[in-house]
């Protein structure tokens, strides 16, 4: 792995987009980086945390994205360069502060870096934060390749300092998580000095108070900054054109779609017919630059992912410029040439491009497709989204499902974001019945918990991870307690922000940089609110189910059950087996048992497999992590666990 903190100027390295962004930040001399883990953004903070000692950096995993942005902003106010890193929906969490920050302006260069997930590969939304740039009036820049990911990060800090406002630098999964060549620049000597000047003239941007008020004045100032950004963007080297002087078709694109468009043109061999205007500065758009390129041809295609952000902004400009550039035909999302959901790829660009150009293009021959499809269908094993072997969530939802089903009052669970989101699927016995944003399980449950007055007699339950508890559950829980909502919250405490790779959180005694941190006790927090709190080990089915029953019996108010069991992939558990598991062949009655393959059909831990030949279950030793839980589900007692000495 490349050490991104080496000086190594001019050396070429294969870097992941997120590493390139982190390197760019180091080259810019960033002093403070804060974020909340979320795919595909997490590696930026992780990489910076790793070199924080060497580069005089403060890096933290904040409690949530809003706090992360506030933490980073403070550094900017104290004239340091800072950044806030989050995933697309994290921008929504931070947006209230972001709105005010855009109004107050910044001092030291400050980047807001959302890494987004078109196609929702690791999300349950494909939110598009580009709209925040227009809505909150802050400049937006988007790297179109890996070198630019580094270079534009460095430039973004300079831009922010020049404009005195936060700058959004947006990445997407295929940039953040793919890798490409990056030539290193210089690393500056760092000797950060923080000082917050606040006693000058109150309206002085460098020494006065930092606030978006008085709004009339500051908002005007902010819009002047955007005007200035527009001017700067007119000559930005990150807006590039490749192609003939008079192309038949002009494609305007940005971000990862730049790569797809380039590939599509190559695939069609249409280099002399298609021009590509790749924009690195996507809001505000530079009008003169657009005017120059829009004038080249009357056919314009806009290639971008998800919602037509570029397209709409370009069309506004084209309407304004109609007198000089003439009428255009646009190909994009509005006319259906480019899809408005999911990720883009070269094939999705080739097809409409070939059509506009009147070229025949077959991505794959009919014969190939005919052969490949059945092969893929019959040979690729079907793999569900599933909890890992030994995952405590499987046991937790086993218990919750049993308790709610036995309770038999049509109770349900409100969920949110974490590995436990998968409990909406069969791997979690389809236990979750609502699933939204971080902390929403508890918030939505808090609302359901008021509906008894309207005749709702179903038990209401919510689940939350330990990191999520601090992130956004707390305000919802306070609300539920204050308003006496009748709910049971189950905290699935697997001791870490497990889904994104064990980042620290306030419930742990360590921080992002590996230093000592104050550990907050979820139980004590809940008890201090007067909540009845129970604790159990989800691997202990009997006790856990009993606790759930007892809590549900308490008719009024908020009840909390903390289920403690570390994630199977946690550093403390990984590569250790507590039990050696075995299916006793004589005891497993296979198809003759009344269980109808409970272990492999319902419980479905990947460590359990159905032996077709013998017609019984067996343990896949390569996959089983020896948690021992399945021994308790087999009604025939055929699964044996032996403690590993």
């Amino acid at each position, binding site marked *: 792995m490349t050490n991104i903190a080496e000086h190594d100027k001019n050396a070429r390295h294969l870097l992941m987009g997120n590493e390139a962004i982190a390197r760019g930040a180091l080259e810019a001399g960033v002093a403070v980086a804060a974020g909340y883990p979320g795919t595909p953004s997490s590696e930026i903070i992780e990489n910076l945390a790793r070199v924080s000692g060497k580069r005089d950096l403060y890096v933290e995993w904040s409690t949530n994205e809003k706090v992360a942005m506030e933490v980073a902003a403070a550094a900017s106010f104290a004239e340091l360069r800072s950044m806030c890193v989050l995933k697309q929906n994290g921008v929504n969490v931070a947006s209230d502060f972001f709105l005010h920050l855009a109004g107050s302006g910044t001092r030291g260069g400050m980047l807001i870096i959302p890494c987004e997930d078109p196609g929702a590969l690791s999300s349950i939304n494909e939110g598009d934060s580009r709209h925040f740039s227009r809505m909150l009036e802050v400049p937006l820049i988007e790297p179109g390749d890996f070198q630019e990911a580094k270079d534009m990060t460095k430039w973004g800090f300079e831009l922010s300092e020049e404009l005195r406002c936060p700058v959004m630098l947006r990445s997407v999964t295929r940039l953040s998580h793919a890798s490409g060549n990056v030539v290193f620049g210089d690393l500056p000597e760092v000797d950060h000095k923080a000082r917050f000047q606040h006693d000058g003239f109150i309206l002085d941007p460098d020494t006065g108070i930092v606030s978006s008020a008085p709004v009339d004045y500051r908002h005007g100032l902010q819009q002047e900054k955007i005007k200035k950004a527009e001017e700067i963007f007119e000559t930005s080297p990150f807006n590039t054109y490749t192609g003939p002087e008079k192309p038949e078709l002009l494609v305007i694109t940005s971000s990862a779609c730049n790569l797809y468009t380039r590939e599509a043109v190559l695939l069609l061999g249409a280099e002399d017919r298609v021009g590509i205007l790749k924009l690195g500065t996507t809001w505000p758009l530079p009008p003169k630059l657009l005017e120059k390129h829009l004038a080249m041809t009357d056919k314009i295609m806009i290639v971008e992912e998800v919602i037509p952000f570029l397209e709409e902004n370009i069309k506004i400009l084209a309407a304004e410029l109609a007198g000089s550039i003439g009428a255009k035909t646009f190909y994009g999302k509005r006319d259906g040439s480019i899809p408005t959901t999911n990720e883009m790829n070269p094939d999705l660009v080739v097809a409409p491009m070939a059509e506009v150009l009147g070229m025949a293009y077959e991505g794959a021959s009919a014969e190939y497709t005919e052969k490949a499809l059945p092969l893929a269908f019959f040979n690729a094993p079907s793999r569900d989204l599933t909890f890992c072997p030994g995952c405590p969530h499987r046991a937790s939802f086993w218990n919750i499902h*049993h308790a709610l*089903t*036995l*309770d*038999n009052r049509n109770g349900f669970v409100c969920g949110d974001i974490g590995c436990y989101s998968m409990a909406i699927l069969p791997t979690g*016995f389809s236990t979750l019945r609502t699933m939204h944003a971080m902390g929403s399980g508890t918030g939505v449950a808090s609302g359901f918990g008021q509906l008894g007055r309207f005749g709702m007699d179903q038990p209401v339950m919510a689940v939350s991870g330990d990191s999520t508890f601090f992130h956004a559950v707390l305000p919802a829980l306070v609300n539920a307690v204050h308003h006496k909502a009748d709910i049971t919250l189950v905290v699935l405490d697997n001791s870490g922000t497990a889904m994104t790779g064990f980042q620290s959180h306030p419930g742990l005694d360590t921080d992002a940089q590996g230093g000592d941190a104050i550990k907050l006790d979820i139980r004590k927090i809940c008890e201090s609110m007067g909540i009845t709190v129970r604790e159990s080990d989800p691997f202990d089915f009997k006790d856990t189910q009993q606790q759930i029953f007892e809590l549900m019996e308490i008719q009024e108010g908020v009840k909390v059950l903390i289920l403690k069991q570390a994630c199977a992939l946690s550093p403390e558990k990984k590569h250790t087996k507590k039990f050696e598991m075995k299916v006793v062949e004589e005891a497993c009655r296979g198809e*003759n048992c009344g269980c*109808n393959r409970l272990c492999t059909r319902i419980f479905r831990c990947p460590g359990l497999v159905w032996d077709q030949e013998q017609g019984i279950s067996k343990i896949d030793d390569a996959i089983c992590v020896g948690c021992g839980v399945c021994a308790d589900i087999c*009604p025939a007692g055929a699964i044996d666990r032996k403690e590993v000495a």
Partner: protein
Amino acid sequence: MQIAGSKELSEQVLNQDLCTVCGACVGLCPYFKVHKGKLAKIFDCDLEKGRCYAHCPKTDVDFEQLAQALFQQPYNGDPLGIYRRITAAKAGERTGTGDFQNGGTVSALMTCALESGMVDGAVLTDSDGLLPKPKLVTRAEDVVKCASTKYMATPAVSCLNEAATDGKTNLGFVGTACQLTGVAQMRLNPLEKSDFVDPIGLTVGLFCTWALDTRQLMDFLSTRVDLKTITGMDVPPPPAEVFIVKTGETVVEIPLDEIRELVPKGCGVCPDMTAEWADVSVGAFEGKSDWNTLIIRTEKGEQLVEKAVAEGYLVLDDFPAEGLEHLTLGAGNKKKRAKENVAKEEK
């Protein structure tokens, strides 16, 4: 009878609210369980045929087949079922004393059966607080502790199923009609399992006109008395038309009409008042509250009664002809009502 699986059981019984929580489908697989007097299906099971369906007393029951298997004779449609004789009975001195609802005949018979080794264990219904709870009893002296009518649907057959899974045989079973119909069907090994062993040594049936939904009764009573203080319940013979709840100091009388609202729909389609598929059946004796009506149905039942009388567990008396008439009328009325309700269901 066409045997189907749990999907059909759900469609035909559970979703129609016909389950009386007898427990016949519980303890055979991981899918059906009972919690606080209510049956729950934990997961879907896609087996085409299941014992759950085959044993359930609320699916189609083949009376002819049961009559042949249990009594070696054709089903005769008598409102009281097939029987050898009817007598009045009550516990003898050797039975000991318990919280008998009436004459203590059931306790007497089971104590005798266990003491004499006629059975090696007995599945009875005990209480856990107010909740009825099936229990496998192996010591004769524990039988009387389970005495008294619980009035609530009890998954007693589940306890028998679990004991059978544990390999126990020659067990006594005490239960109501739905439970005994489930047990009788189980004994036929309808799925022809090669490893099937009949766990039953002896069955004692309890007369039953209806049971009450456990949860509804709890909710109902909790608005009138402190549940923890309840010591017993009773339905005195007509024309009282009340349901009596005894607490430490007081007796609360509730009009029977209010209580009937809590009867599960499944009881309404039950044609069997006297637990026809048992070796002997026991119920109240009209006019003499410290005696029981005892119907002896099988040879084994006869042997048990003879032994119990001979060894002082049980005392018999003549059963009056007008009593028989009355009993037959009551049982016949239940059959008639059930038939009407089934017809209503089928509409």
